[in-house]
């Protein structure tokens, strides 16, 4: 059957070209950072190796494993409850459980550390009741970081797994029943394994976000490799050293991605394509329904309600001082930039996923993985990479067209540059859900279409895209909220005077005025509610697939 497909890596089609060009473009800043390894810094590394790296590495590994486990459990559990079962409130939770995504993780961290720490209001209250929280449940601890980050990041897993269940067809259940599998076995032996690419995609995003995080861990003063990167850069004034540690970090991530791909290739799950009947939800009753409701409520309460209430309380204190008409501009800009980036980056992710599907060579896999590594690099470091690439480009351009525009750099400080920077940073976010969704499209579709004489472009447009609808929407929503919260790239590449809500948060927090940062954070949460209206409803993909392919 496979023989009808283009041979791996040999034949090039024009429809795969955009993805290829894109991959080279986004890989450029990453390669610039990697080129730092050619400037050895023996003194710095001697010191880092002796005092900093080993503890930082072990803490990074522990944290990443902890957060991956946490988000896997929370995300998969919640997605299974809302996607596979029916219980009172399911409709509400189905979407509401995505909401924590709208809040930057470091804001989460600040709220939880601020209120549970020894001097925090919750801890003070409990102490007056004779309960010492700081010894019983210290928030500034490994458990605390893992808990807060899991709470902030579980929606990645929830969203991707939810998308899997939405697009899963009832026939898989029927087939399993024929084989005598039912109940818990159905879930653990059939549905969960079938969701593997999605779970891997979501947990993978969580892992990359965790290793690249600086804001959250710094609130806990929990020293990971990112802390070492910033120590090299800001403490030792060595950007080269920072780039080298970053390279070490993302090379490790690259290795993991490639390994996951090689091991995961044995098991592939395809859409049955026969008849797309959505999964029938199991109606929960009694204690089961109550527990489902309880679990969802608890996560929603901790992940959204309580933090938002805290933000509201803080905002009210500074409302008269800080709130003015400028907030409309911040809001509009944030929404516009995030929306345009969401469209751009989702299309880019699609092009990349398509190229990766067409050319299953090791070289292509390596290129695609490198091109999407930006998500595993601390934002500020990556921003420097982007700016260096653009400055080179600018110089080359002005040399080409003569000194006419030399006083006015074209690339630096433009909205275009911002979008490119976001692309480099977040391509993985749109690529991951699309890659897993594309993996499930049967190769048979491509083959049949090819026999029917369809071109690569029209296969993408008429077959893949309709089948990937929920994947596309999921990735657009994820990119929207990511861009909305993004800070270092925005700060570095924005035009003069260009302020967004995230920039407002930075202005307040950089001098420690966390409470005043609550207002822009709160508005940011509202902004994050916008794209949720776009999320796919409970309808499977491919319901309107061309008749010939069914």
């Amino acid at each position, binding site marked *: 059957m496979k023989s009808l497909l283009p041979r791996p890596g040999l034949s090039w089609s024009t429809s795969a070209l955009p993805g290829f060009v894109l991959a080279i473009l986004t890989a450029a800043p990453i390669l610039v950072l990697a080129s730092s390894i050619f400037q050895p810094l023996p003194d710095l590394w001697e*010191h880092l190796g002796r005092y900093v790296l080993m503890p930082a590495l072990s803490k990074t590994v522990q944290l990443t494993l902890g957060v991956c486990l946490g988000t896997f459990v929370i995300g998969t559990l919640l997605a299974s409850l809302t996607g596979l079962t029916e219980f009172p409130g399911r409709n509400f939770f189905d979407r509401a459980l995505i909401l924590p995504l709208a809040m930057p993780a470091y804001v989460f961290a600040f709220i939880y550390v601020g209120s549970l720490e020894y*001097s925090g209001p919750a801890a003070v209250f409990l102490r007056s009741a004779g309960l010492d929280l700081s010894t019983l449940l210290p928030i500034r601890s490994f458990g605390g970081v893992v808990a807060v980050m899991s709470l902030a990041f579980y929606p990645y897993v929830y969203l991707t797994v939810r998308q899997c269940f939405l697009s899963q067809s009832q026939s898989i259940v029927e087939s399993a029943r024929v084989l005598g599998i039912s109940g818990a076995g159905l879930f653990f032996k059939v549905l969960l394994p079938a969701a593997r690419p999605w779970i891997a995609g979501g947990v993978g995003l969580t892992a990359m976000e965790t290793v690249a995080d600086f804001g959250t861990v*710094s609130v806990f*003063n929990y020293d990971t490799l990112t802390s070492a990167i910033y120590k090299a850069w800001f403490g030792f004034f060595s950007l080269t050293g920072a780039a080298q540690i970053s390279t070490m970090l993302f090379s490790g991530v690259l290795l993991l991605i490639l390994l996951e791909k090689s091991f995961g290739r044995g098991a592939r799950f395809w859409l049955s394509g026969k008849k797309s009947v959505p999964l029938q939800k199991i109606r929960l009753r009694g204690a089961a329904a109550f527990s489902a409701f309880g679990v969802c409520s608890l996560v929603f309460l901790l992940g959204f309600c309580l933090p938002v209430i805290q933000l509201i309380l803080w905002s009210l204190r500074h409302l008269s001082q800080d709130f003015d008409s400028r907030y409309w501009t911040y809001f509009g800009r944030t929404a516009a930039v995030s929306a345009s980036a969401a469209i751009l980056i989702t299309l880019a992710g699609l092009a990349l996923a398509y190229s990766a599907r067409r050319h299953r060579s090791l070289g292509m896999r390596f290129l695609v993985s490198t091109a999407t590594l930006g998500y595993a690099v601390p934002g500020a470091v990556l921003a420097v990479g982007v700016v260096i690439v653009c400055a080179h480009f600018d110089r080359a351009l002005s040399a080409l067209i003569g000194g006419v525009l030399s006083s*006015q750099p074209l690339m630096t400080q433009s909205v275009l540059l911002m979008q490119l920077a976001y692309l480099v940073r977040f391509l993985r976010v749109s690529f991951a859900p699309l890659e897993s969704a594309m993996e499930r499209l049967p190769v048979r579709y491509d083959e049949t279409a090819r026999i029917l004489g369809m071109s690569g472009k029209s296969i993408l447009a008429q077959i893949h895209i309709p089948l990937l609808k929920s994947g596309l929407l999921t990735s657009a929503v994820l990119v929207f909220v990511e861009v909305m919260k993004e800070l*270092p790239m925005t*700060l570095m590449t924005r035009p003069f005077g260009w302020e967004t809500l995230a920039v407002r948060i930075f*202005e*307040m927090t950089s001098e420690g005025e966390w409470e005043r940062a609550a207002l822009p954070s709160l508005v940011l949460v509202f902004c994050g509610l916008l794209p949720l209206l776009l999320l796919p409803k409970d309808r499977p993909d491919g319901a309107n697939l061309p008749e010939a392919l069914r």
Partner: protein
Amino acid sequence: MSHSKKVLLSFAVILACLAGACAWADERELVVYSARNEHLIKPLFDAYTDKTGVRIRFITDKEGPLLERLKAEGESSPADLLMTVDAGNLWHAAQEGVLRPVKSEVLEKSVPEAYRDPEGRWFGLSLRARTIVYNNRRVKPAELSTLEALGNPEWKGRLCLRTSKKVYNQSLVAMLIGLYGEARTEEIVRSWVANLAAEPFANDDAVLSAVAAGQCDAGIVNTYYYGRMIEKTPDLPLSLFWTDKDSDHGVHVNISGAGITRFAPHPEEALKFVEWLVSPEAQNKFADANLEYPVNPSVSPHPDVQAWGSFKADSLPVAKAGEFQERAVKLMDRVGYK
């Protein structure tokens, strides 16, 4: 007119317009890269624009990224002025060659020597004092003397510090190296770490809260954080202690400051602006916005700030903070100060 002539003509017109626009825009404009917050600098920019008509465009970011941006942009950078907090950052920017030396009598007169670059590449604009804060219900001022003394055994389990990753502490330790040498400083910092009541905190506010809540008895903070917190919650049991009383050395001060960039398109305008910033007219606006101390000795601080008492600032040039920063960070790593 032939087609190609038309194209040529319109191209020329566009070029002329561009050139005109550039010339016009160049005239009365300044571009500032600032690591100092928008709400602390914008009012000053606005005041200057009102007074002189010079338009100021700016961008805020952390020092590190701003510096890298300046370096990447090189000759084509639009920036005239780099404003940062912390002397170490200014020192580093000067080392990297992105700032230009300037000669200005006004600046030399208004900014004491310790708070500017000997070669005139950067100048302090406000002072930030870092000193002891204590819980006045649990500690008598007589128990306190110097920063070093916080390492004495009687302070075991009573001290709170902010993380060593914050540049304020890096500069503080660098200045201690400048005063006492590396070996003695290492002993001091080690003794602090031994006395910690809790793991180092992420920010000065957390240190203040911990001291106020009684998690520890004393900490080391920048005074404006104290001022801000007391302004909000006046009944907190917090007081400042100046570390110059029993010491040969003054209180540790750092600066926020500015330097004119090497490739500044408008260096004269930029210099005029910096000279205005150290004038009595601007100094209060600049320092008071964040409850800091004016760098110009002829200007008194905000009354609320004066109420914390007066102190003698240390005379060691703040440039040392940059010079010894790397050693300071390594030292703190060695003693396990996180």
